[in-house]
Every structure is written in C-alpha cells, then in structure tokens.
C-alpha cells in the first residue's frame, strides 16, 4: 500500500491579544491509501483544525501537508461537515450533484449519478425536497451522498454524526460502513466517540489537549465486513477501555483549563 496523506510537523497558531494560542503543535501523520483512519481527541484539541488544513480551507502556520493524487479526472478530496453544510437553496438532488455541477457535468449525468446515490442512502423520494424539510439524520445522509457522488480519492469527515441522536447515529454508522466497504476510499474521520472510532476505523490516532499533537495510536483488530454486532464482542469493550485509559488524562486537562 502506498502513502496517500502525509503531514509533517503541522503547527497552527492563532494570535489572541494576550498570547499566542497553539491549536496544533508539531502534528505528524501518515495515512495509507484505502485506510479508514479515525482521529479521537478531547474537544478543542485541534482535530477539526487539522481536517480543515487537509481540506485546504486553512493554511498551517508551519509544517507540511501533502495529499498524493493517484487518478486523473477525479477530485483529490472532499469534506463532510458536522453542520451538514447543505445549501438551503438547492434541492436535495442538486445538493448531491453540486460537486459534479462545479466540475461541469451535464444536467443528465448529474441527475443520473445523484439519483443513484440518493437511492443508496434511501432518500430517493426526497430528491425534489429542500434541506429544511429533512431531519438531521436525513440531512447528513444527503451530505455524505454529496461527497461520495463527487467520487473523490480521499474523504475528510469532521464529526459527521456528532449532532445526531444515539439511535440515528447507529443507523448511519452502519450505512457508512456499508458504503465505505464497497468503495474502500481513503478516509480521515474525526470523532470524539471512542466506540464510533473502533466501529468504523482501521486505525485510531489519539490527540493530546492544548496544543493538539499526536499522543498514541491503536490498530483496530476487527475484520471486515463489519456491523454493529462487533460492539458486543469482549475485545470491543477491552479496546474501548484501554483507549479511554490513555485519553482520560487529556480530557481532564481540558476540563480543568476551562
């Protein structure tokens, strides 16, 4: 397997009137092609900042981020946002086809691909609805379909299921596993849920709080295809616990700082 994403010494600072705030400090990461990598850390540890740097939305203060393109004619990366970021003024179908529209696909091609993806996420009959008519879970399905429909080499997901209720979350986690296992794209997935990281990921990277840097790394031993059943395995509980043991100090640090 070849390296798809390489981040070396990524540092991001914000200057506040009093002091220099480090959002990220000397963060290093390599992601293999076709790997599902989860980043877990306490809130405010800079994991979203890192994803935004990967997504080209912000520039690091220092350090280097390289996404290595493999194929022609497909976009390198696309993001799925926690706040869905669906355009309220576009129909569900046009939202899913947004990336294709930007890339100059014809109306017919766009329609075909969008409807295909809406069918895959079970929202075909909402193709002509507007986002405000959908529930949170449906919106995030559309947002995920928008990213997949654009067929990027890398998917960057910023706590996509963070705003959903626990039950909707499980349904979408299983859907995400199913979609990903059929396509095996490179994924960087930010979450604050340890269980979600184990359920979805091949590898989990933990981050420290203030400033965010890499703390440790866990390989997820579960075989694919996976589904929610693995959460009942004793190994699942053991892994969850050992990750928590490693992480809890950082979470406490965050709480004390506030």
């Amino acid at each position, binding site marked *: 397997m070849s390296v798809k994403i390489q981040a070396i010494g990524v540092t991001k600072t914000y200057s506040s009137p009093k002091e220099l705030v480090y959002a990220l400090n000397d963060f290093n990461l390599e992601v293999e092609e076709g790997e599902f990598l989860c980043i877990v850390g306490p809130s405010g540890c800079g994991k979203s900042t890192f994803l*935004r740097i990967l997504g080209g939305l912000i520039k690091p203060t220092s350090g280097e981020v390289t996404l290595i393109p493999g194929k022609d004619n497909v976009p390198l990366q696309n993001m799925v946002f926690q706040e869905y970021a669906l355009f309220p*003024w576009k*129909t569900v179908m046009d939202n899913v086809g947004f990336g294709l529209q*930007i890339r100059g696909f014809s109306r017919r091609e766009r329609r075909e691909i969008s409807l295909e993806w809406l069918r895959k996420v079970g929202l075909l009959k909402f193709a002509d609805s507007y986002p405000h008519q959908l529930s949170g879970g449906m919106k995030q399905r559309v947002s995920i379909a928008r990213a997949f429909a654009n067929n990027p080499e890398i998917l960057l997901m910023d706590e996509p299921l963070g705003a959903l209720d626990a039950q909707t979350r499980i349904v979408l986690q299983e859907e995400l596993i199913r979609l990903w296992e059929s396509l095996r794209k490179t994924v960087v997935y930010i979450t604050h849920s340890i269980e979600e990281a184990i359920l979805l990921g091949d590898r989990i990277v933990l981050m420290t709080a203030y400033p965010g840097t890499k703390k440790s790394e866990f390989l997820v031993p579960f075989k694919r295809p996976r589904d929610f059943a693995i959460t009942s395995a004793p190994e699942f509980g053991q892994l969850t616990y050992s990750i928590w043991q490693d992480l809890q100090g950082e979470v406490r640090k965050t709480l004390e700082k506030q």
Partner: protein
Amino acid sequence: MTLINRHQWTRNRDHLLSIGFPIFLVALWELTVSLKWLDPRFFPAPSTVGNALWNLIAKGELLGPFWLLPEKIRAGEWQGALKVLGEGHLWISLFRIFAGFLLGAIPGIILGVMMGMNRTIRVALDPVISAIYVLPKIAILPLVMLIFGIGEISKIVIVSVASFFLVLINTTAGVRDIEPIFFEAGYNYGASRWQMFNHVIIPGALPIIFTGLRLSLGTALIVIIAAEFVAAKHGLGYLIWFSWQTLLTENMFAGLVVIMILGAIFTRGLQVIEKWLMPWQREERLTPSDLSVVKSESV
C-alpha cells in the same frame, strides 16, 4: 369541532374579516357624508370619488386616450402609441418608478456584493454610504435638478438614487449574513469565483436582497409622488397636487385611490416573484398572536 374543522373555520372567518371590515368602513364613510356629518367638499363620498375616477379614465387623463391604441398599433405607429400612453398620469409615474428602480437596484446589487465580499471596499465606502443614506432623498431633488435639468431625467435619477442605497445596504447585509460554512463547502468542492457568486453568494443573499427591493420600491413610490408635487406637469403626484390647488377634492381622492391600488399591486407582485425565485423559503410560521387565537379556541 375537529382540528381540521376549526382550522377551516378560522380561515373562513379571517377571509370574511379581511374583506368585510374595509367594506364596512367605506359604507360608513358614504353614510356619514350623505347624512352631512362630513363636509363633502373636503371628504367627498366614496361614490363621488369612484365617479371622479371613472371620469379621469374616460377623459384619458389617467391612462391616456387608450382607445386610440389598437388603431396606432395596427398602423404600426409605435411612436404614436407610446405618445398616447405618455399622456396618462399613471403610465408616466410608472415609467419613472420602474426606470429609476432598475437604474438604482442593479448597480446596488453589484456594489453590494462587492462590499459584502471585500473588506477593503466595505471599510472605505461604509462611512460615505451611511452618511448619504440618512439623508432624505427628496431633499437632494433641487441638487439633482441643478445637475440634470427639470426634465424627465431628474425624476428618474432621484428615484434611482433612493433605490440604490436601500438595495446596496441590504445586499451588503445579505452577503455578510451568509454562513461561512457555505463558502467552505463551495471552496472544498472547487467552485471558481463565478461559480461561488452563482451558487452561494446570490442565492444566499437573495432573501435579504429582496427585503431591499421591497423597501426601495415603496420608497420609489413616495419619492416620485413628492417629486411630482413640486417639479412636474404630469404624473400621479401632479394630479393630486393640481386637484388640491383647484379644489377638485374628488380627483385628489381618486389619485390617492390609484396610488393605494398601485402599492397593493407592487406588494403582491413582489410576493409572487419572491415565491417563484425562492421556492426553498419556509412557509410562514404562526406568530405568537395567531397561536393565542388557536389556544383560546381550543379551550
């Protein structure tokens, strides 16, 4: 009563009230005049006003000698047809309003988007615009006439100035109001400058741009009537002013009625365009007072 029935009943009652009460007021007016409680020289009865309106139309003052139109059009005399319409106070005022409105609103939207997107332009222009904005636009009519003369251009310019600032300020606010996440989504999917304008900025700012358009159309009506009071020989404002000076109060009232109808048509027209342009806007929600009605009925 079932819930559906109660809704139906509430809606019927609302319809009845909204049509019935104005009719009641007009009838009351008619009655008080005929009972000589109101002086008909100052407050002519609605029937007299209606009559005056009819006369204004029949004599071709309000709409021009429109009965000549089919003949002119058949003969292909477009110039002549326009001249026919140009004799009607209503068409003259409408032309001034819409010409000025378009000349003001289009640059207003363009500069508004630039100000919304570009900090440098915004910071530089903001104080100037705020300073001019607070000036009542009719106050600069003498200046406008000094520059553009007393002809048609001055009236169009004053309307366009009034429209421009309202649309500009609202467009800027509309663009600034767009959630940053939509720009991020646009960038992440590789939108070019033009695609960003087309897919994010304009639709994102459209609801507030429309508020600006609605306000500026209303202001255009005010400004043109005021300008025609003092500086015109045609137009609805002139009709009202001249009727007052010659004590033809029923014609004055007829002019007011025409303006009211015009205002209502503008409002309704913009609502229709708004619905058509922005199908994603939520349906109107119940306001607290409406909710209190529902509540009191359910008790």
